Structure formats: C-alpha cells, structure tokens
C-alpha cells in the first residue's frame, strides 16, 4: 500500500509548466478580484462621505501614515447604521422574509423531492432535468414572469375572476407576499435537489421493516424519513436562506415601498444617494450577519461527516 500511494498519479511532478503555476493562476485571480476588493470595501466603510468623484475621502494614504490612519479611523458610517432604525429594520425584515421564504420552499420542496425519489427509477433522470431546467433559464426573466401574473388585472386576477372566485383584484403586486412568491419560486430547485439527493439514497428496506413491525405511515415518516433526509434539508435551507437575505432583484421588482430588504437599501445608498461609505458599511455588516448561518452550517456538515 505504501508504494501504491507513492506511485499515485500526481500531475505536479515533472510538468514543464511547474505545478505551482496551476495553483497560482486561479489563486492570484481570486486574491486580486475577490479578496482585495473586500479589503477596499472595509477601507471605504471607514472613510468620510465626500461630495466628490469618487464620493469618499480615504483616510489611508500609506504605511508611513499608519498612525494618522488609525487616529482618523472613522466609525461614522457604522454609527449611522446602528443609530438609524431604517437600517436595523431592513436587516431584521430581510432575515424574517428570507426565513419565511425558506420555510415555504421547504414545505413545497419536500413532497416534490420525496415523490421524485419514490418514482420509478427510469423516470428519475427526466424528473431531475425537469427540476433543474428552470434554474438555467434567466433569473431576471423568471421574476419578470411573476410581474405579469401578479399585477393588478394580471393573469392571476383574470383567471380567478373568470372562475368567479373574486370580484376585486387581489392586489398582490408590490407586497411582501409577492416577494415571498418570487423567492420561493426562484430558489425552489436549490431546496429540491439536496433533499432529493439524500432521499434517493434512503434504503427502502428500512421502511418495509418498520411497516412489518407495525409502525404507522406517520411514525415511519417521522422516525425514518425525516432523520435520514436531514443533511439534505439543512443543505437546502442554507442554499435558500443565505442568498435570499441579500437579494436585490426580487424585492425591487415584486416588492412595494414597504418591503424593506437590505440588498435594496445597499443599492439605493450606492446608486441613488451616492453614499459610498454607508453602502460599504451596509455590506460589511451584512457579511458579518451572513457568517452566522455559514459557520452554523459548516459545523453541522463537519459533525455529519464525522
């Protein structure tokens, strides 16, 4: 076994292009265009707002002035964030809307994933493609499709009126309900796929054994299916909840003036109010908030692997 590991194929040895180049190229790209920009965001979040182009006055001008920099370090933007209830409300309502959307997505996705996993084997690849295909079509267009459906006198109103179910338009457009519908719709594949993957591996003989031993269908579901699907449920919730918090397009197009979400606040601060330090501070605080579910999920995944 010892010699086997040594002789194992490793593309590193003897390449004309040295092994380090394979790593260095993408590494350098990510450092330059992913990590460095975040440091700049942090720097600008700690700058003063200025009426200039670019609209901020940096405090950082070089290592020699490090002491001056530290002294001039400015938490003004963060103070605004904490002091003004608008921002606090936006963070809280983003979390609430994202959590609600995650829960609804789970309630819709679980039966779908369960039905997919219990369908005849030869159907499953086709069902999988059916669920994935909408993910490939444009996100913006899928949100736009709901505008046509939910708008006053839109497709849904016309349909319900035609069926004689309503007399007045529902008035769903530009409400929080519309935002929730848009989110559940857009992120549903992210919930279905991990749950399906964990259910697909479920050993059916466990269910049969439980049935033979007299367990009711509900009991079998609660004590066998749910625990075995847990990794998929957690992964799905993570993949829906985290991107939903910072979502911009859905609240902007489907939401109304009273739907407050932090992604939209950041956009407005940046593009309309041109307050770059404040927008940067909003981004930094949002990153800190996102770190909580990220670390929690990582912990869960590590425990699951052990």
């Amino acid at each position: 076994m010892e010699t086997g590991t040594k002789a194992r194929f490793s593309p590193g040895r003897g390449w004309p292009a040295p092994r380090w180049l394979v790593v260095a190229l993408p590494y350098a790209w990510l450092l330059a265009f992913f990590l460095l920009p975040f440091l700049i965001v942090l720097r600008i979040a700690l700058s003063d707002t200025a009426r200039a182009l670019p609209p901020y006055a940096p405090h950082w001008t070089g290592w020699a002035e490090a002491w001056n920099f530290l002294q001039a370090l400015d938490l003004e933007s963060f103070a605004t964030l904490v002091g003004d209830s608008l921002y606090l409300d936006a963070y809280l309502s983003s979390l609430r809307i994202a959590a609600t959307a995650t829960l609804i997505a789970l309630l819709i996705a679980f039966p779908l994933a369960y039905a997919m996993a219990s369908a005849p084997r030869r159907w499953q690849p086709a069902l999988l493609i059916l669920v994935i295909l909408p993910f490939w079509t444009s996100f913006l267009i899928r949100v736009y499709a709901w505008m046509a459906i939910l708008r006053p006198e839109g497709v849904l109103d016309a349909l319900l009126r035609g069926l004689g179910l309503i007399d007045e338009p529902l008035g769903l457009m530009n409400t929080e309900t519309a935002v929730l519908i848009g989110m559940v719709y857009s992120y549903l594949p992210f919930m279905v796929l991990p749950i399906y993957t964990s259910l697909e591996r479920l050993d059916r003989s466990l269910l049969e054994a439980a049935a033979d031993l007299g367990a009711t269908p509900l009991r079998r579901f609660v004590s066998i299916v749910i625990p075995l699907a847990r990794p998929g449920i957690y992964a799905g919730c993570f993949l829906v909840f985290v991107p939903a918090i910072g979502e911009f397009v859905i609240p902007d197009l489907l939401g109304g003036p009273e739907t407050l979400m932090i992604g939209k606040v950041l956009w407005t601060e940046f593009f309309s109010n041109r307050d770059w330090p404040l927008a940067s501070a909003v981004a930094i605080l949002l990153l800190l908030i996102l770190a909580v579910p990220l670390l929690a999920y990582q912990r869960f995944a590590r425990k699951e692997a052990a």
Partner: protein
Amino acid sequence: MNRLRAPHLLALVFGIAFLYLPILVLVLYSFNASRLVTVWGGFSTRWYAALLQNQALLDAAWLSLKVALVSASLATILGLLSALALGRFGRFAGRTLFAGMIAAPLVMPEVITGLALLLLFVGLDAERGFWTVTIAHVTLTACFATIVIQARLVMLDRSLEEAAQDLGATPLRVFFAITLPMIAPAILAGWLLAFTLSLDDLVLASFTSGPGSTTLPMRIYSSVRLGVTPEINAASTLLIALVATVVVLASLLIKRDALART
C-alpha cells in the same frame, strides 16, 4: 421500483406545474396581438418584428453575448486549473483560503460582490466597460465551473492514469491523453453554466459597467421597471429558447459521449 401512488403523483404535478406555468404564461403572451397584457387579441408575431427594430436592445444583446463568450471561456480555464489544484494536488500552502474563496461567491449576495469589484476598479482608475464586466463575470462564474469540473474529477477512475504513468507517459501527456478527454463533458457543462450565468447577470453588470456598455439584462431590467410589455415578453421567450436549446443539445452530446464510452 414501486408504482407511483396518488399523493406522490399530485406532488409531482403540482411542483412541476409551479415551476413551469409562469414561464409558459410569459411565452404565450409574447404571441399576443394585443398590447394589453391580459387581453388575448389573437396570435401574432408582431412583437418579434418590433424587437428587430429596437436597436438599443439589439446592441445590448450583442454586448451580453460577447461578454458571456469571453468570460465563460476564461472562467472555464480558471475553473479547470482550480479543480485540478483542489482535486489532485492534495495539501498545499494556503489551500484553506483558496477553497474558501472558491466557495464564497456561491452564497455571497451579488450586491456585495458587485460593490466590492466596482470599488476596486475605481481605485485602479480603470475605465469601466466590456472588460470590467467580463472580469466580474469571470470571478463569479469560475467558482461554478470549478465545482462542476471538480465533481467529475473526483469521481474519475484513477487506474487509467496510473497505468499510463507506469507505462512511462509524462504527467503532461497523461493529462492531455487521458484526464482531459475523460473530464471533457464536465468542462463543457462548466462552460455552459458560466455562459448562461453571465448572460443572465444583472447586479454585477450594473455595478461594473460604464456609460455606453449596457448589457441585455440591464436593458430588460430598465424597461421591466416601467411595467410589463409584450416586446420584453418576446425578448425573454427568445432568450429562454436559446438557453433551452443549448442545454438540451449539450446534455444530448454528453449522453452520446457517455454511451460511446461504455
């Protein structure tokens, strides 16, 4: 396996209908003769004809196509290198940071990535336009390409590579003669994913583009904000048809490829 039971069938029908009906409605109304979105005025292709007259939209589409082609190709190269580094190199200095940076853009809100990249470009005093949008898209989509290619690389049967190496092939030769052909479907899938994500992106492009470089999603977004128009329905339908065709063709190619290999 077992036959499909009624509640399962119901869940499937409801779920699939929920996913597809909105898109279907959009496609249907793009053929509506009436300008009013809810009134069906008969079948017509007039909005498709109107699209061809809309020079601003055509320019935006052309720019988006160029950005998507260039950024998907660069992202696939970076993705292949990253997948090799993560899947084949074992431990190397700074691997944790590297893996973290690969995974982060997947869950990072686009508004943050967009803001961060714009501040970088402003700091560098770079002229904003085609290249800044392309760089932003490469950064986002390379991560998706990496994950698709790495998944295939990890599943690969190593014995062929080892046999070739035992027979004296240089690592480079092993890579081009054996590894690359075996992961080719994943490379194609990674490229396609990067291409469609780039074609679709609104937020990163809005932050990083400059005057005179408006992409198709930006153009669609600015007219959509003003309301639902049949012309945008037609443009959306064309975009959906394009993506669906490419994805179906690609999956057929990959399937044929897989069949030929077994």
